[in-house]
């Protein structure tokens, strides 16, 4: 058999080939029949008869052949891909250091992005795992979840239980149900009888319809029924979370119906929530839910259900079909204002109620205290890591470009022996894809560590937020998308460039001219990438410097008190039943006893404490002062004990401190802070004048204190006045916090302080004894986190830019070795050669910096909200950023420059 050179290919040829084959057979058969004596026509007839249905056979054969070709094509694609991958793997192994650098930097970039994104997702994006979360609507400020306030003025950031009762039915017009949820701390649960070990589960008090409104079905047992918050004190039932059930009760299947003691009263566990339900609060996993009606049983010392001035609940409703968020908002606003107005006791309060700001927002993403705090930092970090990834892509593109150029000859050889351009591009893209895949995989691992690390860093020694940052579908998708974008960004350019090689010129070009072209023309894309990298680095480094300077400002800001010599003692006197006179007596006793400790310089006490987190505000009226806006007649205040100014180390500007004499039955007095005094009285001393605080208390000003940063280091001090704890013109305080000023390091006095407190009341629960410096530090943990991470990103950007610059300059020097050798041979000084290379490098950096400055000015405007005491165009930050970059650039360029200057003329000439 002699083979035939095939001329027809592919599927279209199949029917023709089958016809040819069958025709050959029929012809052969007919010829044989003719040899045995048949006529031509009869032979053809007989051959067809013996064959059967020619058309049917042909169709069947064609089908078989087409199937065969199809699977062959599939196989050959797999084969090609496999070949590409094997080849790509070989190429990566051939330059292991370069591959490793690429994979590691990609892992860093993708890992950092995924880590930050998983935080952004957990805090800002993820929706509640309940039925149709988008229908949910929240009444009140979701950031105030966990808050509680007593206020004689109507407000609506949180709501009272009385408002809930009034509103629940009314709201049926636009929501299918309205649930309420409020904080409850101080839960003590005993699962094994009264003598068993007590523990402190995290819980919420919720209305009976809470689970029904959210659409959470029980995992075991039942949830509450709507009647269970109607009966005050009559529904001792509790629903526990799946996590708590597993953790505390080891998943006991007979848990439903079991009795537990909570705050010494009996409750029955009626159900367990499904594992996916983490509660309504982002960044907090809950253990137990208790009906609102049990509030007075849970906290018998603080019954607040009937108190119209106790603001502590958020409402969650599910919008009826066809009701938009906007419609729900206006309906709720009217209803809440109406309810508050009906509860108001004076006409001034009615007016306030009618204009109070009612916050109504989507409940799809749950309630969160951390969301608002972390929104800006997280978005800034997201932008930062995004920039970092861009820089990394530019760097990787540069490395691959250099490699692609080095492989120009290989490419031209492959083109010359008949490889298609498409095939070459595919080969190069496969290499990038392999790098990206390895980088993404490594990045995913890195991101797991990083988000854990970030949470720990953010917690700053406190409890780590229980955020679900596990590698979810979202994070995984995000990583893959980044990997893909990175491939296109850094793989396509070198691929296109390399495949554009003209065979002839590439073959010829390997003999490069001695005097060559300038440095720039050889590698314009590489130089462009370096300039962009520098521009992006300017943003990151200047941004980091701004944030660090802002942090330094906060750390050294004048707080107006002895920040390094104070201890803040937080007590839970309420739990022991202290209130009114007994509470005041306790505070005075503690003050006396603590002052006897030798290391203690002075002691005082306050209701809100310092950097502990509670705040009070009320109306003020200053005779002769005409308020221009509502905020003009509102001031923050605190109730403080005798010797407060001395006890905290604050500075008295006018008048006197509070004394033991400022107690009930004597003339009511007030201390003002400087901001308050200046706002209402200008520069003159207000001592001796009388103002009204609250609705009816007239107090005489006895002193003015320099502003104290007592709740936040961020922002200017606010107007504040202090009334005497012993006089309580605004009603008795319900909390006491001791302030202890020490002579030496306050940390050393902590054990003594704790001991002294137990001698006054052995069972008084001490929430915390903390040095003020630590509380202040914790209050700026977001700022510190942001500055730390921004610095890390800035350093990474600097290093990457330096590596990139080093690579490009090394390449340029090696291309120009001949020219440089010639210059040296002709008598050029080494210094001149070094200067020449450095000049070239600095030109690139200069272009990047010039482009980077306006970009940075634009970008720093975005972080303005996070800058304290530093302007977004702070010249110091810019000088530092540019100086650091220039220094890094010179260092990176110096090595190739020195190498160039050492080129021996003979070697250079021989190299050709």
């Amino acid at each position, binding site marked *: *058999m*002699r*083979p*035939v050179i*095939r001329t027809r290919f592919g599927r279209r040829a199949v029917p023709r*080939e*089958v016809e*040819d*084959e*069958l025709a*050959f*057979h029929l*012809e*052969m*058969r007919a010829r044989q029949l003719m040899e045995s004596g048949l006529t031509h026509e009869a032979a053809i007839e007989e051959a067809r008869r*013996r*064959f*059967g*249905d*020619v058309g*049917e*056979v042909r169709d*069947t*054969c064609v089908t*078989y*052949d087409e*199937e*065969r070709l199809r699977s062959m094509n599939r196989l050959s694609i797999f084969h090609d891909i496999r070949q590409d991958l094997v080849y790509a793997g070989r190429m990566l192994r051939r330059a292991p250091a370069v591959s490793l650098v690429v994979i590691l930097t990609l892992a860093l970039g993708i890992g950092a992005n995924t880590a930050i994104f998983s935080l952004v997702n957990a805090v800002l994006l993820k929706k509640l795992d309940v039925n149709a979360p988008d229908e949910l609507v929240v009444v009140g400020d979701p950031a105030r979840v966990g808050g509680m306030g007593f206020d004689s003025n109507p407000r609506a950031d949180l709501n009272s239980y009385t408002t809930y009762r009034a509103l629940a039915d009314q709201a049926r017009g636009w929501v299918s149900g309205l649930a309420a949820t409020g904080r409850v701390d101080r839960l003590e649960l005993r699962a094994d009888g009264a003598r068993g070990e007590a523990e402190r589960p995290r819980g919420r008090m919720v209305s009976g319809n809470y689970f029904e409104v959210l659409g959470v079905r029980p995992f075991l047992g039942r949830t509450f029924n709507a009647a269970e918050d109607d009966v005050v004190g009559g529904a001792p039932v509790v629903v526990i979370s799946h996590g708590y059930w597993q953790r505390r009760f080891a998943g006991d299947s007979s848990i439903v119906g079991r009795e537990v003691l909570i705050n010494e009263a009996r409750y029955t566990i009626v159900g367990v929530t499904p594992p996916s339900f983490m509660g309504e609060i982002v960044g907090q996993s809950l253990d137990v839910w208790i009906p609102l009606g049990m509030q007075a049983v849970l906290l018998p010392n603080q019954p607040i259900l009937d108190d119209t001035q106790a603001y502590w609940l958020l409402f969650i409703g599910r919008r009826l079909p066809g009701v938009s968020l906007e419609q729900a908002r206006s309906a709720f606003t009217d209803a809440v204002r109406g309810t508050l107005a009906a509860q108001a006791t004076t006409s001034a309060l009615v007016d306030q109620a009618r204009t109070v700001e009612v916050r109504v927002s989507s409940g799809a993403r749950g309630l969160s205290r951390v969301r608002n705090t972390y929104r800006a930092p997280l978005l800034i970090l997201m932008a930062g890591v995004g920039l970092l990834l861009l820089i990394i892509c530019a760097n990787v593109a540069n490395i691959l470009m250099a490699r692609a150029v080095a492989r120009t000859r290989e490419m031209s050889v492959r083109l010359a022996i008949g490889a298609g351009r498409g095939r070459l591009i595919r080969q190069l893209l496969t290499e990038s894809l392999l790098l990206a895949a390895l980088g993404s995989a490594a990045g995913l691992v890195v991101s797991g560590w990083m988000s854990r690390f970030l949470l720990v860093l953010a917690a700053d020694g406190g409890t780590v937020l229980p955020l679900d940052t596990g590698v979810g579908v979202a994070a995984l998708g995000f990583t893959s998308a980044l990997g893909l974008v990175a491939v296109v960004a850094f793989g396509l350019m070198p691929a296109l460039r390399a495949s554009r090689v003209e065979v002839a010129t590439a073959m010829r070009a390997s003999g490069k001219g001695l005097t060559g072209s300038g440095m720039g023309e050889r590698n314009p894309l590489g130089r462009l990438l370096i300039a962009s990298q520098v521009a992006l680095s300017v943003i990151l480094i200047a941004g980091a410097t701004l944030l660090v300077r802002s942090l330094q400002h906060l750390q050294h800001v004048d707080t107006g008190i002895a920040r390094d010599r104070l201890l803040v003692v937080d007590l839970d006197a309420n739990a022991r039943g202290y209130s009114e006179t007994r509470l005041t007596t306790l505070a005075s006793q503690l003050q006396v006893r603590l002052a006897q400790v030798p290391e203690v310089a002075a002691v005082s006490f306050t209701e809100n404490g310092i950097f502990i987190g509670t705040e009070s505000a009320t109306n003020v009226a200053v005779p002769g002062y005409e308020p221009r806006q509502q905020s003009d007649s509102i001031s923050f205040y605190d109730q403080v004990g005798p010797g407060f100014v001395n006890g905290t180390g604050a500075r008295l500007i006018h008048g006197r401190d509070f004394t033991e004499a400022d107690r009930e039955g004597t003339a009511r007095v007030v201390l003002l802070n400087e901001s308050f005094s200046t706002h209402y009285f200008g520069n003159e001393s207000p001592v001796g004048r009388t103002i009204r605080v609250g609705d009816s208390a007239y107090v005489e000003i006895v002193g003015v204190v320099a502003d104290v940063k007592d709740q936040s280091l961020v922002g200017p001090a606010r107007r504040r006045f202090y009334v005497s704890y012993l006089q309580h013109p605004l009603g008795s305080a319900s909390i006491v916090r001791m302030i202890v000023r020490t002579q030496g390091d306050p940390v050393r006095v902590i054990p003594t302080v704790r001991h002294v407190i137990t001698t006054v009341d052995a069972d008084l629960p001490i929430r915390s004894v903390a040095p003020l410096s630590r509380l202040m530090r914790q209050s700026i943990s977001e700022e510190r986190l942001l500055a730390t991470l921004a610095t890390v990103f800035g350093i990474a950007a600097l290093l990457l830019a330096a590596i990139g610059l080093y690579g490009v300059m090394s390449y340029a020097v090696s291309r120009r070795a001949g020219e440089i050798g010639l210059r040296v041979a002709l008598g050029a000084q080494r210094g001149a050669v070094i200067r020449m290379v450095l000049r070239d490098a600095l030109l690139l950096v200069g272009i990047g910096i010039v482009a980077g400055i306006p970009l940075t000015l634009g970008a720093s405007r975005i972080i303005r909200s996070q800058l304290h005491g530093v302007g977004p165009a702070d010249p110091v930050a810019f000088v530092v950023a540019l100086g650091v970059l220039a220094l890094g650039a010179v260092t990176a360029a110096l090595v190739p420059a020195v190498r160039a200057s050492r080129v021996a003329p003979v070697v250079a000439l021989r190299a050709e």
Partner: protein
Amino acid sequence: MLSPESGLVRGTLDVLILKAVSWGPRHGYAVAEWIRVVTDDQLLVEEGPLYTALHRLERRGLLAAEWGYSDNNRKARYYQLSRAGRSYLRAEVSGWERYVQAVTKALTAVSPNPA
């Protein structure tokens, strides 16, 4: 003469084709002629189904085909055994031999009770 429609023959056709090309490449007509001659016309192989069988075996990867010139210088499609086809044929032949032995033993038995 055995009917071409019997299951026995239909299963056997594949093996006969593979056997036909086991000495070297043959075109379809040659395969048909070889079967006719070697079985003394005892097996009437219909020629159409022979071709669908050839293409089916090719799809299964037991046969490989390419175009060549026949003895009388005509273009014809030549089939030969692939490696998979050769081992398949070997397995089928030994299976067939065992089958025939067993059936023969049964049909030539002289006593109603097995020994």
